[in-house]
């Protein structure tokens, strides 16, 4: 269980500012969905948290700064599922998931029996045991995506970052992957921050949404507040109908003009 707080997080690529003064607090066990058009800065926020790209401002986990922690310690706190993970086709499923234990292994060390047992257990729980000895190149997109989540889970990090976790999946596998994350969040009290394109899915799974536009948060709050037709029209430049189901689910439906 960990909370994560952003104080004026700013990311620049050269002279271009891609994230401007992002300030937010994600409570322990909360799921924050980052939405916004391409290039709005969603991925950059996630990548700045894990230190892949340089940033200014502060990221605090449970009140203490991420930058003050060692590299391995940071890796043990935040697990990152990239948008387009590089998955070597000749690596086995078990070898891949085992990489998630890296933060706990010394520079010259090797994974202990505990590490291996733990990874085997994660694969078991995610019903991935049958892929342990299979090569990644032989797995489907959905199976691979679940293995990436398994690797993230193997780090036992309390905070999980998902960058477009379902963009490459069909609707069934999208739901499967997100249900898996939701279940794991429930079981382990994970704090989740996800960048997502599908607004309906983002609203369905997130507790709270932050809409980014050109690096700045332009709307933030529970899905009903953020997913409004006017707001989306303004920042995405789209015409949509936002429909509320009786159970509170918000559905964003694209509209098109009739052809003359």
């Amino acid at each position, binding site marked *: 269980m960990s909370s994560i707080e952003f104080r004026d997080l700013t990311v620049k690529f050269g002279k271009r500012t891609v994230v401007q003064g992002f300030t937010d607090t994600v409570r322990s066990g909360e799921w924050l969905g980052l939405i916004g058009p391409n290039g709005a800065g969603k991925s950059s926020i996630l990548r700045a948290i894990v230190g892949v790209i340089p940033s200014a401002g502060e990221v605090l986990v449970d009140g203490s700064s991420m930058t003050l922690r060692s*590299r391995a310690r940071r890796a043990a706190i935040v697990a990152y599922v990239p948008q387009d993970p*590089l998955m070597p086709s000749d690596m086995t499923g078990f070898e891949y998931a085992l990489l998630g234990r890296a933060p706990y292994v010394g520079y010259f060390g090797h994974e202990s029996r505990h590490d291996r047992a733990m990874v085997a257990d994660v694969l078991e729980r995610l019903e991935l045991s049958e892929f342990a000895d299979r090569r990644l190149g032989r797995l489907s997109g959905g199976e691979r995506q679940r293995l990436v989540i398994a690797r993230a889970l193997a780090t036992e990090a309390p905070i999980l970052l998902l960058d477009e976790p379902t963009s490459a999946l069909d609707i069934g596998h999208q739901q499967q992957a997100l249900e898996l994350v939701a279940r794991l969040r429930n079981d382990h009290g994970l704090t989740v921050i996800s960048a997502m394109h599908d607004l309906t899915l983002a609203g369905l799974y997130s507790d709270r949404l932050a809409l980014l536009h050109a690096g700045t948060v332009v709307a933030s709050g529970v899905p009903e507040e953020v997913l409004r037709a006017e707001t989306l029209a303004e920042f995405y430049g789209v015409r949509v109908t936002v429909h509320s189901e009786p159970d509170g689910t918000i559905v964003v439906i694209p509209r098109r003009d009739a052809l003359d």
Partner: protein
Amino acid sequence: MPASVLAVVLAVLLGAMIGPAGPVWWRVPLALLDHLPLISIDSGVTDREWSIIWDIRMPRVVLAGLVGAMLSVGGASYQGVFRNPLVDPYLLGAAAGAGLGATLMIAIWDDIGSDWPVDPVPAVAFVFALGAVAITYLVGASFGGMRTTSTLVLAGVAMVSLLTAMQTFVLQRNSEVVREVYSWILGRVSTARWDDVRLVFPYVAVSCVVLFFHRRQLDLLRVGDDEAVTLGVPVTRVRLIVVIAATLGTAAVVAVSGLIGFVGLVVPHMVRLVAGASYRRVVPLTVAFGAAFLILADIPGRMLTAPAELPIGVVTAFVGAPFFIVLLRTREISR
């Protein structure tokens, strides 16, 4: 693992047994056993024959083993840190640098006399090899940041072209040494003496040990620099250490044995096809099979055109390439 040890032992025995002169082949293992401590066997080998085994054949066997092990493990490590299967240990200019250094020394050798304490050709080749890689690394890392391996690879390509052009220029101006330079470039272990072995052994040993201890890090780099960072790997440092270790060993063996191509590319891939791609297995196995491969590749060279010697670089490519293609095909079909 036992298979790899067996392969090395068999290769060493074959390398010691086969040659145009010397004792009957089956006496050689007996003679070698006889010289082990606490063992006494009447091998029937004369002192002169023992001298052929120990002073002529064994140095070249051991040197071929060291060179093969180093080029193979260096190639595997380079392929790992650059995440590129086509890379060999000469990528960043080690071979081209050594080539230019050796060419310069051979071309101007007559002018400076021969009263140096060490043979200057390998010494200068070694220095030039290290210098070339250092410049490539600094140039490649200075633009595009350390996180992109492609700038480093491209800087290597440019450096190799530049050094090769300079070498060609020197050769053009000193055409009388072309033959000598080419025989150096094509690679040889045939003139090896124990001095050569002693010269390269420390570099190869240090290099192999460092690479061996980075095999888990090499596995982590396989998922990409960014993800390796999120898993807590000091990516830039790991890459630099691996490149330094692999380059030091490669420069040393290139300086002594010339440019033996193909080994650093083919042996790691053979090992991967057979034992899987995890560097935990690839690194130790390439050391063993690289050694065995080059010891064996040295044997036809001394027999086919005896008493002349076929350059070992020709043999490695001539035998290795078809073998590799066959292996690639059969593995692809069986998958």
